[in-house]
């Protein structure tokens, strides 16, 4: 519970910082903080319920802070979470290089999925083929940032879980001494 709340707080703060940074830096050079956080949570948090709820909340926040339809990024974040969980059960995605490669591919799929959803729900689509030139720096920025963010999220989760384990151990010791 504590882990979930802390991660949601950090996630929302990260999204807002991303929105402010986009005022100065062109968005194509900025990483997709929401997607990277979802991948990091999928790799670091054991509870799938926390992961799913985290993905949904971050998806809605992304939709609120962007020009997409409300719900569009929720589907994409859930997809990214599911893909990371499924793939991490079969492959080791914890190393920086495999993770960066995975996020690079995921960014391309993400843009494709956004285009597909846009074409279906908005007449004429939104992501046109000529934006592919924006995809390269964006995907690269995602791949570069993902290992660092994942390590940070893993450290936070470890710290919070250690605190919880320590507290329960202390409680158990007190019960025994009584």
């Amino acid at each position: 519970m504590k882990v979930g709340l802390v991660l949601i707080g950090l996630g929302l703060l990260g999204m807002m910082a991303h929105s402010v940074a986009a005022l100065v830096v062109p968005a194509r050079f900025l990483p997709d903080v929401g997607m990277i956080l979802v991948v990091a949570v999928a790799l670091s948090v054991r509870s799938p319920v926390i992961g799913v709820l985290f993905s949904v909340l971050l998806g809605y926040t992304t939709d609120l802070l962007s020009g997409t339809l409300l719900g569009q990024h929720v589907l994409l974040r859930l997809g990214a979470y599911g893909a990371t969980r499924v793939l991490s059960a079969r492959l080791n995605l914890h190393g920086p290089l495999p993770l960066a490669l995975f996020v690079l591919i995921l960014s391309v799929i993400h843009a494709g999925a956004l285009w597909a959803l846009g074409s279906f729900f908005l007449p004429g689509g939104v992501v046109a083929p000529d934006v592919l030139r924006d995809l390269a720096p964006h995907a690269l920025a995602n791949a570069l940032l993902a290992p660092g963010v994942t390590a940070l999220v893993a450290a936070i989760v470890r710290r919070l879980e250690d605190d919880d384990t320590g507290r329960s151990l202390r409680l158990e010791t007190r019960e025994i001494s009584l």
Partner: protein
Amino acid sequence: MAETRNRVSLTLLVVALVGVATVTMVVDRRALRDGTREVPAWAGGLLDAAVPVQRALALPVDFVRGAWSRTVALMAVEHENVGLRDEVARLAEENLQLREALVAGGRLARIAEMRQDFEVPMLPAELVGSDVSPWFRSVLLDRGRSDGVRSGMPVVSEQGLAGLVVATSGGAAKTMLLLDRQTAVDATVQRSRARGIVRGRGDDTLHFEFVPRGSDVRPGDIVITSGLDGIHPKGLRVGTVTEVEPPGSKLLRTALVAPAVDFGRLEQVFVMLRRGPTLDLLYSTESGDDDATRQTAEAGP
């Protein structure tokens, strides 16, 4: 057994969330099409909470940006001042002569009355965030429904048309910039009155589309809003034509337009507190909404 139950519960949760997200998308799409898009109350709270946080996060960014622009601006300010003084003197003289002519014709009082109809109250607003997706071009403003801002209100800067409010919460407004692919504005060339539609391309340029083959459009022409889309008022500066596609065998031509507004430096904008006739017609079914808008418009910013 417990593991299977957990797995089934999780699957049901995911299916339910996907269903909710899809329904939200459909509802939002319908609202966007009908021009009645408002941020739902539960999401509005999140958006309202984001504004002060983002304003605080933007402080260091604003400081650095402000310091830089001040330094650059100081270098050119003296030269600019001399030019502006001359310009002010010339315009003051011209103004005086025009007033004299109007008074002589007895039309000044009538023009003053007309101004009441034409002048739209403007609400200054600040940009507190930009689009987090590289495929869309929208910004978040720090004014919302409580300030009288409604979906469909045009947003301008001192340079020209910047965009349109597409969703509002109590204290924030999401504005789709002119550069976004979803934006379309009925526009006209100021010199030749050639008409077309200006569309965003997702980058820093605009397309002036559906211009009839025989129309007179040249690089350097100024493009302004025609007011015929019923959303944007007539005469707002949109941009300058930079390139015209050769007509070839097509019936319609396309031109490339550089936007009048420097979107890279956009910090403050003005929300025009009056919607165009088309959107007012759409909103007229909403109870109380129009009255609130009219009251705010009449009261002024």
